[in-house]
Structures are given as C-alpha cells and as structure tokens.
C-alpha cells in the first residue's frame, strides 16, 4: 500500500503526515508513506486544497486533516 500526503509543507500537512503515520503504526500494515511537495505532482492529482491524502493513487480527502482513527478506516 502506498500513502501519499500532498501539500507544500505547511503545518497542516505535517499534522496530516503524523496522523497517517500513527494510523499505519497502529494497524501494523505494510504501507509506504510519502510526502508530495512538488506543485506539478499535486496538480496532477487534481487537488486544489491542501493538505490532501492519497491512498494507492486515489484522493481520499483534501483540505482537511482527518484523524488517525479516520485514516485507519480509509486504509481498511
């Protein structure tokens, strides 16, 4: 599984990254976490409001910070 956090590096993006990290750790799933900061790459996902959460290439949320609990549900 591949989890990507899209965002240009604002505090919100870091918060989302931490939540995702926590979710992955708690579920003990084999997932690769990646921060995507390049604007062209972010645009390629069609995302306009950062931070956004992408799981296996699919945009799950944008413009908000889902909690670790909410991310767990999305992973499962």
């Amino acid at each position: 599984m591949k989890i990507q956090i899209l965002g240009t590096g604002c505090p919100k993006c870091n918060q989302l990254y931490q939540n995702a990290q926590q979710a992955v750790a708690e579920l003990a799933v084999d997932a690769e976490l990646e921060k995507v900061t390049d604007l062209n790459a972010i645009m390629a996902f069609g995302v306009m409001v950062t931070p956004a959460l992408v799981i296996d290439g699919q945009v799950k949320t944008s413009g908000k910070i889902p909690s670790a609990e909410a991310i767990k549900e999305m992973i499962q």
Partner: protein
Amino acid sequence: MLSIFTRLADWIVYSVFGMSPESRLADGLHFFVEDTTKIFALLIVMIYLIAWVRAAVNIERVRDYLSGRHRVFGYVAAASFGAVTPFCSCSSIPLFLGFTQARIPIGTTMSFLITSPIINEVAIVLLGSLLGVKFTVCYVAVGIGAGVLGGAFIDLIKAEKYLTALAATAHGSTVATGHANPDPVKMSFRDRHEFARDELKTIFRRVWKWVLIGVGLGALLHGFVPEEFVVEHLGAGQWWSVPAATLLGIPLYSNASGVIPVAESLLNKGLPVGTTLAFMMSTVAASFPEFMILKQVMKPKLLLIFFLLLLTMFTAVGWIFNLINF
C-alpha cells in the same frame, strides 16, 4: 443578550479585582475582559454553525460552477464564493493553478483570492459584535467590491502574459477536471457534526492568539491614548491619512481577528470610518508572506501591479467613505 458580557466584566474588574472605575487601568482591563469573553463565545457558536452549513460545499464544485461563465458574472460569483470559503494561504497556489487549468480567467481567480482573506465568519462575528451592523455591511460590500474590481482590472491588462512558467503551463494544459471529488456530497448528521467540530477546533486554535493580541492592543489604545490626540492629528480626515493608513497596514501582517478590535478602539477615539476601513483592508488582504507565495505563479511585474492595485483600491475606499462622511 450581549450585555451579560458587560456585567461579567463589571464583576471581574470592579468586584473581584476591586479596582476603581475611574482608573485608566481598570478601564482598559474592563474593555479587554468584556471583548475577549464576548468574542470567544460568539466565535464558538458561529464557527460551528457556519461549518455545519458549509460541510457539503467543496472547492471542486466551486471551480466547476465558475468555469465557462460570463466574465462579469464570474467576478461577482468568485468574490462571493471567496467570502464564504475559508482561506488558507498555503492553499492559494494549488487553488490558483486548479482554477487556471479549468480555463477560468485569471481575473476571476483573483476576485476569489482578494475577497477570501477579507471576509469570513470570524470577521463577521467580530465586526457585528464590536462595530455594529452598519459597519459590517459596508465592510462586506467593500470586500466583495474590491474582489470584483481587482479581478476585472487583472483581466483588463491581460495578466496571462505575466504568469510564471508553472502557471502558464497549467493555463495551456487540458487536464480533465472533476476527476478528484473526494468529498461525498450527501452528508449525514454525524458527518456534519464531525466536520463542524473539526473546523471549530482548527479555526479557534488559529485565531485565539490574534484575538487576544488585537483586543490587548485595543485595550491599550482605549485606556492610554487620549482621544484628543487621534481627533486632532487624524480625525479631520486629512487626505494623506488614508494612504498612510493603507501603507501602514501592509507590513502589519494580521488576519481579520487581530485587526478588528484595534479598529474598534480607533473608531471610538474618533478615527474616521474611511481611514479605519482602509487600514483594516490592507492589513488583512495584503501581506508580505502572501506575496512570497504568489511569487510562484506571478512574475515580479504582476506582483508589483497587484500590490499597487490593492493600495489604490483601499485608499480610494478610504477617501470615498471619509468624503461622504459616513
């Protein structure tokens, strides 16, 4: 209803601290206690309610709605959307590029970006409770007007040629829009509550310091700057006081929550409405961090034009309001 906050402040300052109502310190402290408690209570209620309503609106739908519309309609609609959507400057570039990709004219996008930071629920709460309905209506009208005129001007000078390579690529590309639509349109009661609760937490966490700083400064002005000073030096609406206030507001990087309590104090001290409006608008709408972010999509020439445009618009607003002696 709001008088309970006055009574609360009376009780804290005069009974708990036992201060004399005549002292300046008590006066300033009373102002501080009354305003912070009132603002915080109203903010909690309003942010939650607005977020509840807004939960189903997402920016992709705004974009789809705006693309392919008549320009004049576009400016007004974009500025209005800017008013109701929350704004985070770290999102302004992806948003700019996303709108550009959808072939929305640059001017329409700028209407959105100009109005968005000026008007939001936090600003409305503060204005309504501190400065009254009349001033709030003016502020909203000017905020939307600035977005519409600013956007029209940006299109008039054909700003496309001043975009950086990054934005120009987006402008020329034909990426299919609408394929990312992560938010479910139908939201249950619980979804809305969770969204509203999260919004409340996020927004409150961001603005509470600004409110305290703003009200603190306002209280200082209220308690210690003599009214005659303001009236004598700035109160007669001297022509230069408006551009001076606008210029002063630009390096002061604050959001609406910090500047409005200060404006309340200045108005009470006799600063004319136009000068106050100009100062507020430029503090909120134009800031150096924002310009640094926009540098990614705008060439320096366009940034300079944009800067001068804001300066001119806010100064004009100030002069007009002072002239009609509002």
